[in-house]
């Protein structure tokens, strides 16, 4: 079983991943994009997208799904960060999941790009226990970039310090 976690800790994964064309189970299920999800209950519907999918093509599905999973085929392949950011900028408010062998050291960046949770494969999860993810999330508590979620923004902090 891969390990699923968010900022609060390790989570039970309620979602079932479906292969292309598989029948829908009763519970919440993640369909491979584009997925035939018309008529599904959005609360029980998620989609999984590869990292070369144009986020624009996912926008029409926003109100039909409550989870989008984005593939990270390798931790060095950073396209997913931009996809997460784009989905949020386009107004997606549901759950956003990063799926793949990402490192604890990238957890903070993922959260800032709009991801809520991370699903990592076993081998990696075994080497990098929860405690490392917690430490990584708080390692650098400030950031310079505006408009990204999460850490304390240095520019805002300065603005406050200037009293405006």
């Amino acid at each position, binding site marked *: 079983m891969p390990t699923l976690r968010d900022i609060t800790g390790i989570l039970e994964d309620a979602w079932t991943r479906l292969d292309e064309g598989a029948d829908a189970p009763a519970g919440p299920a993640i369909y491979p994009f584009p997925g035939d999800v018309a008529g599904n209950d959005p609360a029980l519907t998620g989609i999984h997208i590869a990292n070369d999918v144009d986020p624009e093509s996912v926008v029409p599905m926003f109100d039909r799904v409550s989870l989008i999973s984005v593939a990270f085929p390798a931790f060095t392949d950073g396209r997913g960060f931009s996809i997460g950011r784009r989905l949020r900028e386009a107004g997606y408010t549901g759950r956003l999941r990063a799926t793949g062998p990402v490192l604890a050291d990238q957890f903070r960046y993922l959260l800032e790009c709009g991801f809520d949770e991370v699903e990592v494969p076993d081998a990696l999860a075994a080497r*990098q226990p929860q405690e490392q993810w917690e430490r990584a999330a708080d390692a650098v508590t400030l950031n310079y970039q505006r408009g990204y979620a999460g850490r304390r923004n240095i520019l805002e902090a300065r*603005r406050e310090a200037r009293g405006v």
Partner: protein
Amino acid sequence: MYSYDEFDERFVRERVAQFRDQVARRLDGSLTEEEFRPLRLMNGLYLQLHAYMLRIAIPYGSMNGRQMRMLGTIAEKWDRGYGHFTTRQNIQFNWPKLKDIPDILDALADVGMHAIQTSGNCIRNTTSDPFSGVATDEIEDPRATCELIRQWSSLHPEFTFLGRKFKIAVTGASSDRAAIRVHDIGIEIVKNEAGETGYRILVGGGLGRTPMIGKELRAFLPREELLPYLEACLRVYNMHGRRDNKYKARIKILVHELGIDTYREHVEAEYARIDRSNTAADMAEFARIAEQFAPPAYPELPEQSAIFERALKAHPDFAHWVEQNGFAHRVPGFMAVTVSLKPVGGAPGDATSEQLRVLAEAAEQYSMDELRITHEQNVVLPNVKKDELFALWTLLKSQGLDAPNKGLVTDIIACPGLDYCALATARSIPVAQEISKRFSDPARMADIGPLAIKISGCINACGHHHVGHIGILGLDKAGVESYQITLGGDPANDASLGERTGPGFSYDQVPGVIETLVETYLGLREPRETFLQTYRRVGMAPFKEALYADAA
């Protein structure tokens, strides 16, 4: 000079602590080498042939005496007593131990420096004009813009795992001393018709395996739009740049394959989607940064200095140095000078810890506490009173820092090459040393005039050979070092890439080859014509003939 506020300081300290933890996790097996490698690279740590190498950023090449002194201390305490300045306004130490790196980074943080993103597939140290703030042809000091970009690009959540490295250079002057045309993004500070200051944006330049000159993406970008616009540029690259082939992963290939117009359409579409008000830096913040680059309080001095004039007459060596290494300052009574790190027969860009300390002292005593690092691997003291130039020269001379060869045949750029670099195919430093010895006669150097020789030890082109008037590229031909020569490259406003002369030469032949090229130029030149001008006038043929005629 920008100095860290409490937030910058905390940010860098936390980053050091994080790296300390990452090193510990590598040692205990939590991180494999494959996982650790990009993390260490993003903290400037390479593994080279003989040892680790730590690359430290000197943002836009600007530093003060205290920082320079710390570099000397690091060289002494954790390395072998010297450092190497690079063409990207960084300094490299060639022998540190992994276990010492976190301590070195902490020592750097003590003086407001870091090694963040000096390597790795992320936005690298932003480079600039070494004469920023003092040049007479400047529209605006580019360092405020550079610092804004430095902050914005540091640990950027979205752009830290790009397809490849990403280099940005900024110039604020009409004559480009920052080589912006050979950067992933080149930024030129310009004024529009309404007199507002903004940016001209170039994209897709670069050297390496496939050298390209950057193309214009935007003729004028209003200042407040800079960061959201860069975000759009980077996002398009991050999502669409190639990742199947490391050698095709730079943005120059994307721009080349899409065409500049299509790339621009992508960027503009992305830009239209971005919530600018939520991304842009507020202009009060820009003003806060810019204030720190306000000109120092220059005393009012006459343009002429009697002491200076006397010293020029009494000491021909000094006069020669001033003539060759001096640079006009915009404030009367002041000069900027280049301290050449290219003594005859030396390793280009190397400085010992004693020299680093003398440079620190020179800055504090004679240059209003400012130093600049140039992409020619030299150091600039930007704010020297003419009255004190002679005293400065005397101090520099005591540590062999008085080479009067800025821009001349012995002011050679060379990458570390096979003597240090794990990627190298041939040596470059010893080649530079041999050439330098051949041309050691100052009168001959002066007669030859401006000539930029640039040497890279492999196709990655860290020595900028494509933009050398004479470029030398070291390759491996069946286990033997072989050197390919290019002519006519130049990185400045009318940037051009060098042309190959023909088949390569052996290690031992190279100094003679350079000699032949120089003699050919001397025979062909018209009065006051430089090597580059002669080459541009007469073309390759006579040089080729001189090189290969005997062999035929």
